[in-house]
């Protein structure tokens, strides 16, 4: 049983609204979303395409700005941050994307190293850590391969290693299994669950995958830009 009062609130969204212009037609992707995520949580965000899941994830990840409402990360209102401060904040967030988003010309190890290079780690330090992380995700032997030489599942594991490189406050995953076969997806899920359970890494996953939803500690159901269901498993 979770004791909410004792857990630190890491992410909070307050009355989030986001309106896009699709051509000339305004589209309301979020229509007033409220969400709190505590440290150590494993949250699955479910919902049909166009329900606003990814938009919500982008807001929480400081990649996009809401039209209305506020996002607090560790109680800091991110709308008050400038571009540089937002960049600093993103260094503390681990992103995992559906299409992996690895840099094609860099090897697996270099991709993991890149996120540490951006933060300013020295060469030997980041190389050592990249190797450890790749070993942890089970890719030690493949670390000198480029993304094109890796399978979808392997690429996603590189992406997870990269997301973990800077000891993030939390992981944001956008359809992490959406582009890989179900067997590999199972392995990824096991890895994510293990990270959450063993290392206590707060994880927010946007997914269609019912298996992830069933393994998560909490599921949030979205529909038409609103949270319609929020349950603890």
């Amino acid at each position, binding site marked *: 049983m979770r004791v909410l009062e004792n857990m630190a609130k890491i992410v909070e969204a307050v009355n989030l609204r986001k309106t896009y212009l699709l051509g000339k037609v305004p589209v309301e992707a979020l229509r007033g979303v409220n969400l709190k995520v505590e440290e150590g949580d494993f949250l699955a965000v479910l919902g049909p395409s166009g329900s606003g899941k990814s938009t919500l994830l982008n807001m929480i990840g400081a*990649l*996009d700005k809401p039209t209305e409402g506020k996002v607090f990360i560790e109680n800091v209102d991110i709308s008050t941050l400038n571009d*540089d401060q937002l960049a600093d904040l*993103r260094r503390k967030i681990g*992103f995992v994307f559906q299409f992996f*988003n690895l840099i094609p*010309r860099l090897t697996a190890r270099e991709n993991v190293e890149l996120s540490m290079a*951006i933060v*300013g780690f020295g060469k030997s330090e980041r190389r050592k850590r990249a190797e450890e992380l790749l070993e942890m995700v089970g890719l030690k032997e493949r670390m000198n391969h480029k993304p094109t030489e890796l399978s979808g599942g392997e690429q996603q594991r590189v992406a997870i290693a990269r997301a973990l490189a800077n000891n993030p406050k939390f992981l944001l995953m956008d359809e992490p299994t959406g582009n890989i076969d179900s067997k590999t997806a199972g392995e990824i899920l096991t890895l994510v669950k293990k990270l959450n359970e063993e290392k206590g890494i707060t994880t927010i996953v946007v997914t269609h995958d019912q298996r992830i939803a069933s393994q998560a500690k909490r599921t949030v159901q979205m529909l038409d830009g609103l949270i319609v269901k929020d349950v603890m498993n």
Partner: protein
Amino acid sequence: MNVNDVLSYAFGAIKLRKLRASLTTLGVIIGIAAIVALLSFSQGLQDTITVQLQKGFATKTLIVSPKGGLGGGEASIPLLVSDTDTIEKIGENVSAAVAIMQKTCFINVNGRAFTINIVGVDFAKYQTIYESTFVAAKGNITSENDSVVIGARIHDPWQNGTIIADVDYMVNITWTKRSGTSPSQNKTYTGRITAVLKEIGGFNIGGPSDLGIYIPISQAQGFFETDECSAIVVLLKGDDKATIDSVSEAIKTAFNNQVSVTSATAVLDIISSVFSNIDFFLAGIAGISLLVAGVGIMNIMIVSLMERTREIGILKALGMKNQTVLMIFLSEAIIIGLMGSAIGIASGWGLANIVAKVGIFGGRIQGGNQAAAAATQISITPVLTPTVFLGAFAFGIIVSVIFAIYPAWRASKLKPVEALRYE
């Protein structure tokens, strides 16, 4: 992200698109090579001309010649051989004045015949003025009446040992005399070569020439039946501007402004100012090609920006700051500019040297005519001054960077979420 990482990231991006990067670099290479080749060649030409003029046209001299004459209507008053006395009386700044009489004659020596200028001059005085150039390599410059002194190219026109005139050879000089409406009449003067001048090289104004044939002025006066000379060379005691100006003025006053006075220093000044204009013009033309290269860089970087939008989104999602993105793109331009400038300077320098050796201006400037076909060798050695070297380097890099600023700025301002969504 530290500077090393930024540079190696930028370098990696360039390496990925080798052909495109080399073509972009080629644009810079062509621009820089053009600038360096043109300017080092022009500098070499300027140096050659300056040195030649200083040699053949001592800086301590003034040349007095009749006003007008050349295309400017009739010469105002003739300049006479005896006018040297007037000039020598001008003052303490004048140490000597020598009259020069030039006529085109038909020469016959050792079975060869050609047309050339015969110069009548007072050998002794001429030697004091041009002490480093009016010097015998063979024989002695003596003032005997039939003495003839010839330039090095008359002696050995092709510089290959084929001697057509040498010391003690007899020379027949034929001059066609025309006066008024009476029929023309050929006169012939026979002299003996007493000296061959040492090689002078290049140009001369008033001074001795490799293609000159000299006879004593007194003989020239008799043979050409005139006291009119074509110029008077004045040797000054100093080559400072004050001396040159005061003597020039004094001479003009003495001849009621009917003569023109040219100073070597003034000519050198004019030449150097002409060259700086030419340099500016050449650099401008070459600069345009570099500008085109700059537009090429901008074009390629905008294309690259679009291709790499998603990559920029990833970098930003990983927490890269705007200024780091800007630096990566600018570094790519700096690398291209650096390589382009370095290769451009090297190839421009090579090009200038090749042109100087085999090319258009390099070889020979035909000096004689007809049978003599004597040639005067003017070799131009391109000169790469530190200013041109550093300037070209800086210019190449600056142009590359300036044209990269806009694409780099756009890259840095991309919104992460939009960049990530970009297909």
